[in-house]
């Protein structure tokens, strides 16, 4: 039988809703399903094959291809490469309020330390109450130096200081934690631009909560427009989420999801796995 308009339209509605229920942003869900469906028009399938199963399989293949076509980034080997070249490796963490930047900085520091790389932390959140004390606890637990200024100081100056410290002391990795901000705040997005301009990070990492819905798409677009995102960490996937935000962010940035945050311990960092993600997102 041939896949026609009618048989495809009810299936596409079902699959769009399935993606939306998995927290894929609406415009992204529509675009992906519509592309898959239009590529299947007029295709002949076996008499006993179900239209739904055929389209679902094609959807999975399309999503897998899209995710695997994005160049991955291996943070540890990037750091090692820089050390070999006698250079430092600076990573800047950005993202919306409360989505998990500070804990992610600690997790990444832990990962680098386990790979025998030296680390210094920069607290470029000079705004939020308790931000410096929070990162100080992580630094103490990990046994690394934290560069911090007083509250209200210039966040770019803290980042700059940390870079100077790393160069002077022969520390390889500089991890810069920044204050949370919503992508709609022009002033705060300008501040982020300034920190990036001063610190010149090798990697700008977006940290987003996997519980996020449609806003993940706009978040990724705006943060990308502001400073250019090189990679994303999707946190709190242990909260029984489907993780569709990963698709929205991948489409918006065309950059890799490098880790999933899977809990509140330093080891709760899982490398990106496309099949694992699709198993959760797709019915």
């Amino acid at each position, binding site marked *: 039988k041939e896949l026609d308009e009618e048989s495809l339209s009810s299936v596409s509605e079902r699959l769009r809703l399935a993606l939306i229920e998995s927290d894929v942003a*609406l415009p992204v869900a529509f675009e992906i399903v519509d592309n898959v469906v239009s590529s299947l028009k007029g295709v002949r399938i076996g008499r006993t094959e179900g239209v739904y199963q055929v389209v679902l399989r094609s959807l999975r293949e399309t999503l897998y291809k899209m995710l695997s076509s994005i160049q991955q980034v291996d943070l540890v080997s990037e750091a090692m490469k820089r050390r070999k070249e006698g250079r430092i490796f600076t990573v800047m963490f950005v993202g919306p309020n*409360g989505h998990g930047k500070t804990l992610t900085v600690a997790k990444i520091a832990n990962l680098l330390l386990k790979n025998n790389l030296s680390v210094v932390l920069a607290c470029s959140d000079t705004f939020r109450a308790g931000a410096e004390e929070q990162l100080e606890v992580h630094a103490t637990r990990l046994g690394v130096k934290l560069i911090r200024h007083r509250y209200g100081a210039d966040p770019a100056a803290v980042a700059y200081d940390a870079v100077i410290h790393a160069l002077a002391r022969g520390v390889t990795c500089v991890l810069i934690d920044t204050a949370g901000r919503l992508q709609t705040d022009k002033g705060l997005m300008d501040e982020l631009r300034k920190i990036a301009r001063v610190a010149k990070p090798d990697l700008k990492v977006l940290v987003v909560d996997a519980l996020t819905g449609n806003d993940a798409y706009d978040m990724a677009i705006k943060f990308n427009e502001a400073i250019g995102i090189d990679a994303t960490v999707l946190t709190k996937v242990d909260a029984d989420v489907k993780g569709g935000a990963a698709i929205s962010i991948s489409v918006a940035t065309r950059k890799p999801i490098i880790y999933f945050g899977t809990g509140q311990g330093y080891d709760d960092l899982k490398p990106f796995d496309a099949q694992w993600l699709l198993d959760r997102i797709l019915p």
Partner: protein
Amino acid sequence: KLGTSLREAIKKFLGRPVADELAVKELIRDVQRALLLADVNVELVLKITQLIEERALKEPVPSGFTRREVTLKVLYESLVELLGGEKQPKILYPANESITLMLVGVQGSGKTTTAAKLAWFYKSRGYRPGIVCADTFRPGAYDQLKQLALSVGVPFYGERTGTSTEIALRGINELKKMGCNVIIIDTAGRHKSESTLMEEMKLLSEVIKPSEVILVVDATIGQQAKVQAEAFNNATKIGSIIVTKLDGAAKGGGALSAVVATGAQIKFIGIGEKIDELEIFDPPSFVSRLLG
């Protein structure tokens, strides 16, 4: 087609000479899309729009009105109704009563910041608030809340070591002795799959018996809002909801799902990081923002 905001859909709908069944159905489609974009739970969107469509097509049209005006009225009213409608939530308490508010919610939703905002809100209305840090897990939680309490100018109680239950009990005692009549308890973030933390929250609530357990919900949360709210409600009966980060682009549809899942009303919304960026919830303006 997706770029059509609901306002344009309504304009188009009203522009038609007769609001026939097809026009109503088309409007319903656009409403579904707007609600999904706003992160309202998929099942709830389908349920709401089905109800509205049935009512809109069957509801008698009073003289002087058109069926299309009835449809829009039904849509708006149904959503406002879901959010508590005209029923004024209890925000102000008798001054001689001592009340305890316990804040709970998923990690990073804004509990600690909201605890301070609530203290400022009640202080500016003549109450004597006090804040207790019962978050013994998060690094810097004590310092964060203590700094916030200082900026609001209210008594703070916390201990650097101890269990959350012991600290909460001692805190309530100490603050009452100091004359506080609105005691706000900040707790650690947690989600439904962390059974130990959910148990801790349940125990905490049973021991301190708060006047109200407040669920703090991030406006950016998507389809999981309903499931998380249900789990919180099963562990500790949720008395009210506060939706944070509505100063961003998110419409907060997840909060609507949380309302339906818990039967609790939204009392406040957070519209920024500063202490005074808390507003009393207003269903009509939330609904108009929801519908874009």
